[in-house]
């Protein structure tokens, strides 16, 4: 895949939809350039031969099985939980409707 194709108009449209972002044409153009630069930078890794290196799934691969006991502790009050919520109602967080009209 060539670098130009990686962030085609379609790709930008698709990932902005996944991210729930509405972008102007100018923003899309800007982001396309920026994302291409970032990806090209990562392509430097292709210079290394990693065919014999197992994939790293976690930076702390030697630490395993970090557990917590099943003992309840007090959490937040309703007021604390909602204090940063821009929209709330009767102790609930309030969100937009989830279905299309």
């Amino acid at each position, binding site marked *: 895949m060539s670098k130009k194709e990686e962030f085609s108009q379609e790709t930008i449209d698709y990932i902005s*939809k*996944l991210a*729930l972002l509405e972008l102007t044409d100018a923003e899309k153009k800007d982001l396309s350039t920026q994302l291409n630069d970032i990806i090209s930078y990562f392509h430097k890794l292709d210079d290394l031969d990693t065919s014999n290196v197992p*994939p790293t*799934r*976690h*930076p*702390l*691969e030697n*630490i*395993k*099985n*970090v*557990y*917590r*006991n*099943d*003992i*309840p*502790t007090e*959490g*937040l*009050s*309703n007021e604390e*939980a*909602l204090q940063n919520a821009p929209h709330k*109602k*009767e*102790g*609930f*967080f*309030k*969100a*937009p*409707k*989830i*279905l*299309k009209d």
Partner: protein
Amino acid sequence: MIIVTSHDNIIIGLEIHVQLTKLKTKLFCSCSSKYRGAEPNTYVCPICIGLPGSLPVLNEKAVEFAMKLAIALGCKINKSMYFFRKNYFYPDLPKGFQITQYNKAGGKAFGDGGKVIIKKKSGKKEILLNRIHIEEDPGRLVHKGSIVSSPYTLVDYNRSGVCLIEIVTEPVINSPEEAREFLNQLKSIIQYCGIADLDLEGSVRVDANISIKGHARSEIKNINSFKEVQRALKWEIRRQKNFIKRNKLLKQETRHWDDSRRVTVGLRSKEFEKDYRYFPEQDLVPIELKKSYIEKIKNYLPEMPNARMKRFQNQYGLSEFDSEILVMDKDIADFYEEAVNSEKDFESKEYKLLCNWLKGDISRWLNLQNKKITDTDLTPIQVVNLVKLIEEGRITGKIAKSVIGDMMLGTPIKKILKQQGKKRIADEEKLSSICKKVIQENSEIIKDYKTNPRALEALIGKCMKETHGQADPKITRKLLLEYIEK
């Protein structure tokens, strides 16, 4: 309307989400998981409402519980695994992703394969499983009015982060009835594992993939109880068959089970793209399960319903049918065993009697009251006493049936009988006068008796009626015979 006659061309696969309700805390935080009935957003903390900077820590007991179920279902447990983020935007998901397990991209489910054996009229069938894995429950959405007309969505995160086990079957279920039977067996196994009480409201959610062979499948979401699954599947099969009959093309779609209207409806979700961009969750370190740990859990695991059923047949001489009914509900089976073992003199006759009372009148009462046997004050000893009183001829079966209701509420049988004045009349003088009276009043039956000795039973019946079932049958019989011969 099309009547579904053959199920051979129906293909069903189920995804069952079960809350591990026997855990005291959530999967990744120490919030109590006993949120039922609580005010919204009062069982929450920075981790389960996804505040920036909060870090999840895995509940060790959740791993143990998942392992119990994996062993019980015969899954192959993956010894090395890690969690993934499943990314999508929905108000019930505070972080914008769900922490779950993934069996692709180098990931592994908790357990692969496994099976549940179900009983069919034509014999037994193995329902093969694809996998089981653990994940966190999303929050709960509350709609004003219906999901469609509600102008906004209210979100309660008390449920957010509660530990779920997802069980995925292969598409090998061929009818709604098979699906129901499978879920009943699964429920029983989960109860035996001691990891969840699936009678708790909202502890179960099922998604069903269903298609008619050769046609597009639909996925039904939002089935919130095992009972509803059979109903939803039946409805959906009828819908699909109607489509095919009218030569309309079925499309692959997600449908929503509306349990108040009892129909499935196609829903168009806002901004829905099925691209979850799974990637390993870096806030949690990998899990590595040692063989010795798995063996240890295996040894702790209680006897499963299938093995117990076979033991009941051998140990108590019960039929396969009886044992199956008894073991299905672990509480009933435990109650039964406590009862039979509390009386040294009991043998197969009493074993069968105890079984009959439990699966008959007692179960009927529990079903009517929608209660579990552990919710009642009935004790095994009381049922043993009931059986003994009947055996000794001190009360009749009829009286026994009439007192079950009071016994379930905790009143000892002997006390009930005393209060109701119902006890065996064994006093010969008292019985003599009753027998004489019955003989005098029933000369026809006496005549009949000369040619038909079985007419005596009718006379005993009359004596019973006179005494409201309290006359001792043996003494009554002896006295009646004496007087008739005279």
